[in-house]
């Protein structure tokens, strides 16, 4: 695993790029690293907790479904002087069945204006599921209040969770 905080500008200095192949039981350690690092540069505990939820859930999905085992986690703060955004993205190569499921879930989550109401429907479904929770992405959308985008390039997929950085959150 490599951590590469970049230093070309303020925004890049606050970004993190990790190439990793975590086992499920190692994801918490990466989340804790993210929380520790952003406590130093963002000074917004609520925003950091939202980023941590997104990073943890996306990395767990990657650990479960990546066909190669390898993933790339990127946390970026972008926008310069324009309205800034924080994004948490994980890229990997999932199996085709998972890819279709992923596209369907993100499409469903993107169609609603009321993420909380849809999340409650996911919770009702989860209560009766035998395998898996099916909650990770919905949790990012509803609890972390981040929008979700999926980008597909051949067999590679990148799931990005994004939220505006409020003016008072400027580091």
């Amino acid at each position: 695993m490599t951590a590469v905080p970049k230093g070309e500008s303020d925004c890049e200095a606050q970004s993190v790029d990790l190439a990793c192949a975590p086992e499920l039981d190692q994801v918490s350690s990466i989340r804790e690293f993210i929380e520790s690092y952003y406590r130093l540069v963002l000074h917004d505990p609520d925003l950091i907790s939202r980023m941590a939820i997104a990073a943890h859930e996306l990395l767990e999905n990657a650990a479960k479904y990546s066909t190669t085992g390898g993933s790339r986690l990127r946390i970026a703060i972008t926008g310069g002087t324009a309205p800034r955004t924080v994004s948490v993205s994980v890229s990997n190569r999932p199996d085709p069945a998972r890819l279709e499921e992923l596209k369907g879930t993100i499409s469903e989550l993107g169609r609603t204006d009321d993420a909380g109401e849809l999340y409650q429907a996911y919770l009702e479904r989860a209560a009766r599921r035998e395998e898996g929770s099916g909650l990770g992405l919905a949790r990012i959308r509803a609890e972390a209040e981040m929008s979700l985008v999926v980008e597909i390039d051949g067999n590679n997929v990148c799931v990005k969770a994004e939220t505006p950085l409020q003016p008072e959150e400027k580091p």
Partner: protein
Amino acid sequence: MTELVSISDAKFSARATHVGAGILLELTGAADATAKRNLARMLGEIHEHAKALGAEEVRMDIRRLTFMNSSCFKDVITWLDRARADARYRITFLSSATQHWQKRSLHALSCFARDLVSIEAS
């Protein structure tokens, strides 16, 4: 005070005790994929203990819980669903204002089981 069930892993521990007319369940550490292996079983056992003891309330203290992943969250949801169906005891979450994820997750839980769940923040 009688210990009912406990689990302890490297980064997560849980302990349930019978206290007065209720059960106190204390979770510590990070409830992630490792904790998932035991949490579902433990919550099932607590549900059975609560019914057998005629408990009026289960108090779940998560003030020292630093994170809960969606798999463990699903186990809590399943437990709430069973408790909601039986309607024999209420559930109170003791949360910490400094664990920011808790406010968001507990809000979702309270919406899921509005008549069953209450939250005490400190």
